[in-house]
C-alpha cells in the first residue's frame, strides 16, 4: 500500500439483483497510480463490481463501502456522484461503437466533458479535444475530431473513448474489457497506449478482463474473482508464480494444451479437402443510376489454395473481415464460388446451394460448428429434434426409435448423457450453458458421420476453462474418428494447440501457409509476425 493511503478502498462490497447475490463481500484497494487487474470468467461479477463503484448498476442493491480518498462513494448524494463520474473516476467500455453517441462527432463528445467538468469555453474545448485525440495517437486528430463514430475504425473508436475518459484527468480509470472487441493486432497497441498514458498522468487503472495475457503485460496487482467472490489477490508475479487458490490454478492451466496426433498420414493419401485458386465475391450495390442495372463486386476471398489430409487440422487464422468465415461457407457449399474445390474427391454440383442428390451426399461428408452457441441452436426445438435433424434429412427411413438411438449415441460421444441431465432429449437449448450448447452443436454435426468438420471460431465465445474442455473434446474426437478439421480462429493459441497446418489470411488474401511450427515460430510475412507477437506468447 502506498504511504499516502489507498486511492480507492473497497470494503465488503455486496451486490444483489433481486434475491440473487452477484458480488459477495469483495474487498480490495487501489493505490494512487497503481494498475490493478480484476480477472474472472463471464458472469463472475467483475463488471458489476466496477459499475456499482460508480453506482451505475441499474436496479441492483449495493451495500458495503467504497472509499475514494476517504469519501464513501456508496453514501454520496446523486448530485455529488455525478461530479465523481467522469471526474475523479472515468470509465472505458468494451464496445466503443455502442458506448459512443452515433449522432455526435467525437470532438463534440470530448468537448462536452471538458465543458462540464472543467468549464472551458467552446473554442478552448475544441482545441483541447484535438490535443487529447493527438495524445491517444489518432492520426490527423484535427480532422478526426470532426468524424462521427461510424467513420472511425474499431481501434480509433477505442482511442477516442480513452481520450474522452482522460478529458477530466481522472485519478482512477475503470477499463472494462477495453480490448476484447478489437482485433488481436490492435489489442497490444491499445494496451500499450493505456500503459503510456497511465505513466504520463499517474492515474490508477482498474482493468477488468478475462485474458490472463493482458494481465501479465499490463497490471501491477491482480484480483481473481469467482462467482462474486474475490478468491485471491496480490502482485501479478506472486499470484501467477504461485497461485494459492484452486480457481486461480484452474484459470492458469486453462491455456489450450496441444494433444494431437503428430504422425503424418502416408504419402499419397488422397486429401479430404483440396482447393485451388478459390474466389468468392459478394455483390454490392453501386451508387446512382448505374446501380439499377449493374452490381459492384466485393472480393471476400481470392486465390485461396489449400489441401487437408485425413485426420489433420488446417488452421485458418486472421482478423475479422479477413474472409476466413466466407472461405468456410464456400467449402460448406453455402455460397457460390469460383476456382476448384474438392471435398472427399468430389466437387459441389453447381449451384452449390441447391440440394441436388449429388450435393446431398457431399453434405454428409462436411459439417460445421459455429462460433456462437446461442444462435447456432434453434431455441424452439428440443435436443432430440436438433441433433436428430441430420438423420431426418439423410436417413429418412429410420424409425423414431432408431433415430433416438443414434441421437443418444451422438450425444454420448460429446459427453452429454441422460445420467447428468434427466430428460435430456426433451430439453430445450436455453437450459444449457455455453459449453454444453457447443457440445450439442458438435453432436448435431457428428450424427451424419462426416469426414470433415469446419470449426468456425468454435471456442471464441466461451470462457477459458470451458474453451479448454471443448478443445480437448475436439482433440479426442479427431483421434478416435480420424476426423479432419478446418479450424477458423483469430486466436493464435488455439491454432498452436490444434493445428497441423496454418493458413494466414488478411483482406481476402492468403498471406502465408505451411506447417504450424514453421509459420508461428518463424513467420515470414510482417503481418504474421505482428499477429504472433500480439498474441502475447512468451
Amino acid at each position, binding site marked *: 500500500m502506498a504511504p499516502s493511503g489507498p486511492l480507492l478502498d473497497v470494503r465488503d462490497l455486496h451486490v444483489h439483483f433481486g434475491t440473487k447475490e452477484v458480488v459477495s463481500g469483495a474487498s480490495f484497494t487501489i493505490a494512487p497510480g497503481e494498475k490493478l487487474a480484476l480477472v474472472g470468467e463471464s458472469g463472475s461479477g467483475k463488471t458489476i463490481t466496477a459499475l456499482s463503484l460508480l453506482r451505475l448498476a441499474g436496479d441492483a442493491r449495493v451495500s458495503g463501502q467504497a472509499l475514494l480518498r476517504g469519501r464513501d462513494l456508496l453514501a454520496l448524494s446523486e448530485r455529488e456522484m455525478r461530479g465523481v463520474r467522469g471526474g475523479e473516476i472515468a470509465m472505458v467500455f468494451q464496445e466503443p461503437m455502442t458506448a459512443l453517441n452515433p449522432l455526435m462527432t467525437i470532438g463534440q463528445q470530448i468537448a462536452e466533458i471538458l465543458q462540464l467538468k472543467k468549464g472551458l469555453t467552446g473554442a478552448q474545448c475544441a482545441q483541447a479535444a484535438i490535443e487529447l485525440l493527438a495524445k491517444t495517437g489518432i492520426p490527423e486528430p484535427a480532422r478526426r475530431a470532426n468524424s462521427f463514430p461510424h467513420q472511425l475504425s474499431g481501434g480509433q473508436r477505442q482511442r477516442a473513448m480513452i481520450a474522452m475518459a482522460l478529458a477530466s484527468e481522472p485519478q482512477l480509470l475503470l477499463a472494462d474489457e477495453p480490448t476484447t472487441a478489437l482485433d488481436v493486432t490492435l489489442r497490444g497497441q491499445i494496451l500499450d497506449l493505456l500503459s503510456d498514458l497511465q505513466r504520463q498522468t499517474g492515474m490508477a487503472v482498474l482493468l477488468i478482463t478475462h485474458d490472463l495475457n493482458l494481465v501479465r503485460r499490463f497490471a501491477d496487482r491482480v484480483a481473481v474473482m469467482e462467482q462474486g467472490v474475490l478468491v485471491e489477490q496480490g502482485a501479478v508475479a506472486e499470484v501467477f508464480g504461485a497461485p494459492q487458490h484452486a480457481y486461480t490454478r484452474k484459470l492458469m492451466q486453462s491455456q489450450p494444451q496441444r494433444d494431437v496426433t503428430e504422425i503424418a498420414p502416408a504419402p499419397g493419401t488422397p486429401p479430404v479437402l483440396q482447393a485451388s485458386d478459390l474466389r468468392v465475391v459478394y455483390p454490392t450495390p453501386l451508387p446512382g443510376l448505374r446501380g439499377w442495372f449493374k452490381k459492384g463486386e466485393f472480393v471476400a476471398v481470392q486465390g485461396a489454395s489449400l489441401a487437408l489430409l485425413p485426420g489433420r487440422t488446417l488452421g485458418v487464422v486472421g482478423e475479422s473481415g479477413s474472409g476466413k468465415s466466407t472461405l468456410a461457407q464456400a467449402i460448406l*457449399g453455402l455460397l457460390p464460388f469460383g476456382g476448384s474445390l474438392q471435398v472427399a474427391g468430389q466437387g459441389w454440383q453447381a449451384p452449390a446451394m441447391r440440394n441436388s442428390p449429388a450435393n*446431398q451426399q457431399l453434405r454428409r461428408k462436411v459439417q460445421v460448428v459455429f462460433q456462437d452457441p446461442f444462435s*447456432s441452436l434453434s431455441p424452439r426445438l428440443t435436443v432430440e429434434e436438433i441433433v436428430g435433424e441430420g438423420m*431426418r*434429412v439423410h436417413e429418412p427411413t429410420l424409425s423414431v426409435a432408431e433415430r433416438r438411438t443414434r441421437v443418444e449415441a451422438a450425444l454420448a460421444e460429446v459427453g452429454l448423457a441422460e445420467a447428468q441431465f434427466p430428460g435430456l432429449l426433451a430439453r430445450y437449448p436455453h437450459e444449457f450453458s455455453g459449453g454444453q450448447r457447443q457440445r450439442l452443436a458438435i453432436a448435431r454435426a457428428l450424427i451424419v458421420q462426416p469426414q470433415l468438420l469446419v470449426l468456425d471460431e468454435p471456442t471464441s465465445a466461451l470462457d477459458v476453462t470451458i474453451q479448454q474442455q471443448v478443445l*480437448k473434446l475436439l482433440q*479426442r474426437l479427431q483421434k478416435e474418428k480420424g476426423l479432419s478439421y478446418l479450424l477458423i480462429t483469430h486466436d493464435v493459441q488455439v491454432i498452436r494447440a490444434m493445428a497441423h497446418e496454418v493458413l494466414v489470411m488478411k483482406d481476402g488474401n492468403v498471406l502465408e501457409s505451411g506447417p504450424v511450427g514453421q509459420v508461428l515460430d518463424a513467420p515470414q510475412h510482417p503481418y504474421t509476425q505482428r499477429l504472433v507477437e500480439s498474441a502475447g506468447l512468451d
Partner: protein
Amino acid sequence: MPVAPPAASTAPVSLSPSRRAWLRFKRNRLGLWSLVIFCVLVVISLAAELVSNDRPLIVRYEGQTYFPMLQTYPEKTFGGDFETPTDYLDPFIQQRLSAGSNWALYTLIPYGPTTLNYFAKEPNPSAPTRDNWMGTDDRGRDMVAQLLYGFRVSVLFGLALTFIGTVLGIITGAIQGFFGGKTDLAFQRFIEIWGSMPELYLLIIFSALFSPSISLLLILLSLFGWMGLSDYVRAEFLRNRQLDYVKAARALGVSNAQIIWRHILPNSLTPVVTFLPFRMSAAILSLTALDFLGLGVPPGTPSLGELLSQGKNNIDAWWISLSTFAVLVITLLLLTFMGDALRDALDPRKADK
C-alpha cells in the same frame, strides 16, 4: 482420454418456450382474467339461441311435448286460428300455454335477434322495462338480444378476418423474407401499389355492384388486411434466416420448405402472436364502422355498428347508444388487456422470475 464432464444440470423440468410464455402470461392477472371473461362471453354468444330466443325451449301442451326450437308448429297446434307459425309472444298463445297442466320453458330472454314484439306495451324505441331489460331499438327489437347476437357476429367476423389476414401475412412475409433479393423487391413494390388502393371507395363500389353480405365483406377486408403483418414477418425472416442455426440446417442439407417450417417460422411468430388481439379489435372496429356507415352487413343482421347509427338517429333513446357503447368498450378493452399481457409474456428481455 478423459474429458471433464460438463456440470450436471439441476433443473428437473423442461419447459418449451411456448409453455414458459404461457406461464408468464398467467402471471399477469389482468390479462388472464380478460382472457377468461372474453372466452365466457364468446361461449355465451355462441350459444345465443339457448339464451335469447322467441321460441320456448320446451312446450308441454295437453299431454304432448313440443320442441319449438327444432320444429316450427302452426298456431293451430296450440289452439290458435291460423296455419301460420306460432307467435309465442302473443298473449293469447301464452295464456293457452300456461292454462291447466300446460307449461312452457322459455329462454332467459324471450326475443330473438330479429323478433318484433307486436304486443309491446310501450312505443318504439322503448326505454328499459321489465319485459325489455335494456329497452328496444327504434324498430321494437329487444336490445339485449340485439347486443348478444351483434357481439357474436362481431367476434366471429373478427376471428375470421384475423385468421385470414394472419395466414396471408405470414405466407407473404415468409416468402419475401426467406428468399429476399429480387423476390422481396418485387413483392414490396406490389404491396406499395396494393396498399395505396382506396379501400373505402372499393367497398362502396362493390356494395353497389353486389348484394351486401358478410362473406363479401370478409373477402374485401381480407384483401387489404394482410399487409401490415407481412412487413413484420418479413423483417423477422430476414433476421432469422442468416442466424447460425439456419446455416447449420443448410449445411445439413435441409430443404427450404423444412427450414422455413421447422426452423424460421416458429422463431418468427412473436410479432404475429403479439398482434393477434390488436388485429382482432381492429377487425371488430372496422366492421362496426362500416355498419355504422351502412356499408356493412345486410339489413336485418344484428350488428353493433347499426345499433350505434340508431343511437345517433335517436339521441333521446340513451339506452341504445349507451349499451352498445358499453359492449364495444368492454370487448375492445378485454382484447387490449390480453394483447398487453401477451406482449409482455413474449418479450424476450423479460426473464423468468
